């Protein structure tokens, strides 16, 4: 099963609902393209909802890091929402859990971003 992504906008926050596999190949390429598009459009507040991600490998983790860096380099913020236990454990093992701002409540996650005119 490949990766699927749905983009929603809540105030200034772009919420990306990801599902399936984020692995080397199609999944990683899709995520890279999606983040590039959002950054190009000027969307600097990105919340990746990983609730339905069934599998992520080392390349997928690398793609999350790449997305984080790409958004940060544009002065924005990328945060993670609803990690499954497997993704949570992988981020812990790779010491990335403290790098990412991780949330389990969408409303709180959205409100944690700077306000649009702030």
């Amino acid at each position: 099963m490949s990766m699927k992504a749905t983009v929603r906008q809540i105030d200034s926050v772009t919420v990306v609902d990801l599902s399936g596999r984020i692995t080397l190949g199609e999944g990683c390429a899709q995520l890279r393209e999606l983040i590039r598009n959002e950054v190009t459009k000027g969307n600097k507040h990105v919340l990746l909802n990983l609730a339905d991600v069934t599998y992520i490998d080392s390349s997928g983790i690398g793609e999350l890091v790449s997305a984080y860096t790409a958004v940060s380099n544009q002065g924005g913020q990328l945060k993670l929402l609803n990690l499954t236990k497997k993704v949570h454990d992988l981020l812990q093992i790779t010491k990335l859990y403290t790098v990412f701002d991780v949330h389990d409540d969408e409303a709180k996650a959205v409100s944690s971003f700077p306000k649009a005119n702030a």
Partner: protein
Amino acid sequence: MAVKPSVVEVTLESTLTNVEVAEEIARRVSATAGFDEEDQHKIEMAVHESMINAVWHGNKNDASKSVWLRFQIYGDKLEIRVRDQGSGFDPKSIPDPLEEANLLNVSGRGIFLIRTFMDDFRVEYVAGLGTEVTLVKNLNYRGETKQGGTGREHESHSSTN
């Protein structure tokens, strides 16, 4: 009476699609061997990363090449061998992904994850055949998930002429 080891051996076309085939075999074999779901997932991920290395780095994404896998169930462990047709690599040359300076690197976590999820990891270049990695998971290993799997104590890298 000694238990006769069970063996599953397969040769796959070197494609990313077949990474999922290898995962499926790993999941079934590890379940048959008696590993719990958590360990089955760790073994599956280790095989996934090994297949990615074989297909992408070893065989340079050349579908005319192949990857050979051998799963051997012993009474107390599962041994997995994955061989590509590449020219080998030195795992010591891969930077530690847990170092502060490397945390935001996009790549370089595959071998680290294999070492973390398995109990033993070895790399050997066999002249005329390719690069073979051996992964071992002990069936009675019930410790906590190892942290900082960059320990080199189980590692070997040798060339056979």
